[in-house]
């Protein structure tokens, strides 16, 4: 449970794109990291089925700067069965024939301080302190299961222990309704329903309302 101080990790990177769903084909980023992106970063560093991450606060450490790029991307998804077909019958995939130029309005030079809690699942038997310590050790060593990223896989994130000097930027802003997370369907199909919440940036800090997590528990 959320006893004591939340766990902290600092993440930063050259680029970030926390894509707004309403502008997803031609991506436009939210101005700040979303709770689900923060959860993704935490899960990349440490995750076990015994617990879930509840993000409490996201501190914005660098001024919000936008950056726009156009890239060649493809129209298709990678599908396992199609790839199997190539293995059997030959053929392959030619990106040049399946191209789409897509624009991204991304963020530049970002840094965030994520504060989150480890919340144990019902079937967990160990003490939460075990996982908290494990997480701290992993952050100190720079260990991760996969490289954490800032919204898009191609925007890799650096992470580390905060040194206490971190200060959020001076900015109060009404961010409107932003994505909280997805309610994944229980059939493991990967389908989900997006959940939104009204977000405010107060003195550079995005506080995630705890009641958003109550639904799941």
């Amino acid at each position, binding site marked *: 449970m959320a006893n004591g101080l939340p766990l902290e990790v600092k993440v930063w990177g050259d680029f970030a794109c926390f894509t707004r*769903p*309403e502008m997803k084909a*031609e991506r436009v980023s939210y101005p700040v990291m979303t709770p689900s992106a923060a959860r993704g970063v935490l899960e990349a560093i440490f995750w076990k089925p015994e617990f879930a991450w509840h993000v409490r606060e996201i501190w914005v450490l660098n001024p919000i700067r936008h950056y726009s790029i156009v890239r060649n991307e493809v*129209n298709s998804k990678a599908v396992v069965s199609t790839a199997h077909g190539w293995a059997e019958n030959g053929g392959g995939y030619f990106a040049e024939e399946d191209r789409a130029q897509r624009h991204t309005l991304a963020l530049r030079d970002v840094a965030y301080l994520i504060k989150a809690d480890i919340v144990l699942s019902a079937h967990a038997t160990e003490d939460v302190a075990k996982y908290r310590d494990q997480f701290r050790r992993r952050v100190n060593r720079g260990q991760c299961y996969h490289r954490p990223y800032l919204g898009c896989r191609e925007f890799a994130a650096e992470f580390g222990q905060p040194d206490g000097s971190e200060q959020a930027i001076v900015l109060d802003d009404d*961010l409107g309704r932003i994505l909280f997370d997805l309610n994944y369907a229980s059939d493991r199909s990967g389908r989900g329903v997006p959940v939104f919440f009204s977000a405010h940036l107060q003195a550079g800090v995005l506080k995630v309302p705890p009641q958003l997590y109550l639904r799941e528990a």
Partner: protein
Amino acid sequence: MLLEKLREYSGRLDLDPPMYLKTPIKWLIDLDGRGRFINFVPTTQEAGSKKDRGKEFSAPHIGRASGVRAKLLADNGEYVLGLARDKSKQIRADECHRAFVEQVRTCADTTGEQSVRAVLGFLEHLDVAELSFPKDWDPAHTMTFRVQGLLPINLRSVQEYWCAVAAGDEEANSKSADMPMSCLICGQLRPPVKRHQFKIKRIPGGQTSGMAMISANVPAFESYGLEASLIAPTCQQCGEQFTKAANTLIEGEDTHVTVGPLVYIFWTKGEQPFSVATLLGRPEPSDVRALIESAFRGTTAATKLDGRPFYATAFSASGGRVVVRDWLDTTIGEVRRNLARYFVLQRLIEWDGAEGRPYGLFALGASTVHDVNRELSPQVPKALLHMALKGGPLPMWLLFQAVKRNRAEQGITRPRAVLIKMALFSQRPNIGEDSMINLNMSDQDQAYLCGRLLAVLEAIQREAIPGAKATITDRFFGTASSAPASVFGRLIRGAQPHLARLRKDRRGAYEALEKRLEEVQQNLATFPKTLTLQEQGLFGLGYYHQRAADRAAAIAHKQARNQQAD
């Protein structure tokens, strides 16, 4: 955020009724009270021109692609009268017509409006052969009915009926109508639209029929099993409102600026004290002066509005989609101050020494490329606009573009000189009121002096050989601006015979030029081997300033002489 603010703005507009859209209608079918045909009446005077699509009416709208979906009471000839177009099949026209009649019938039954009944009566006893068609009538034209001089589409009950029907149709059309989602914009639990009915139009390079903002049209754009516009669930009402607001802003004279492939739109919460679009697009010197004064003095009327939010966004087109290129959320006061700085930085004398006028985004951007229609990248106007509205420095690559263009053209134009000045001086947080507007005789910067020197040497050549085809500037501007040491020795030696000739023939000109040459040279100990990017910018300004000062002096001289002659 953007969509939310657009929807908020739509509340201030006098919009068409829900599910209604401004549509050009070419013909009115006049009926009497009992539905008997009277005549076809053209909505515009000059009927007959092919391009004329008729006068715009607010008419029932529904998005349609290839399927048969009838609009209520106003549609093309295929739907209204069942007459096939040149290239379409009669079977399809019959089908369209049936759908149209059905639509009118349910409307008449639901609303009970007498005029709709009259239209229904006309449609039920329709015999196309009996109608007298005007010469230039075509089934592709749009038409609607007029009963006893009144348009049924304008009736309130008809509008309400259509809103309910079309929105309901939309729900049936959306795959997950049984699963309401919380709307991204208003936050209410409503059935989301699968495809938006209203499109954003008039974005440069985009489809004329309009484009959708939210659309996942290929698998790679989909998420979590959500397709088309469901990736970002929006309710019909919000979708329609933000689209109509965006269209209104794109059409408004004062609310949009089109630069190359981008269209910028601006709006505020509440009234707008100045037109950003006009200031950035075609700035009038008087407006600019007023803006600068109000920003530095802060009159009470102005400061009262200063805290109000100000929004700007840039759209471009990518096939059938809208691309959001930029998004700005600030306050009127900020914008006023930044705009004032933007124009203060633009202050530079004209070639003839007169007070300079401000430039629009287009002129400044165009100065960095050879062919503005083909080469101007959207990044250029975007960077300028960003600086104008948000403040801060211009990016250095813009200075590089301008300097590169100087070298390619072997010279400098006034818009480019202005751009270089802005790029150089916007780097400094505080700018002096009148820095670098005019020739600065005391500036000891070597690059600046080199620029002045080139202008003086050119003047000597011009005086000695009037009408020379290629001046030294035409040949050496590029090298002189980047590596002065390699050319100036030669240029100065080359000027000696010119000076000698002037000394013999035109003593007055010789003395003036000799003096000017000395003035510049006395502070120039050696010529720098190379100049950095910033220095190359200063070189350009030095050259520009010196030439403008020379020209001004020449004009003053001439005037004085004319006065003496009088």
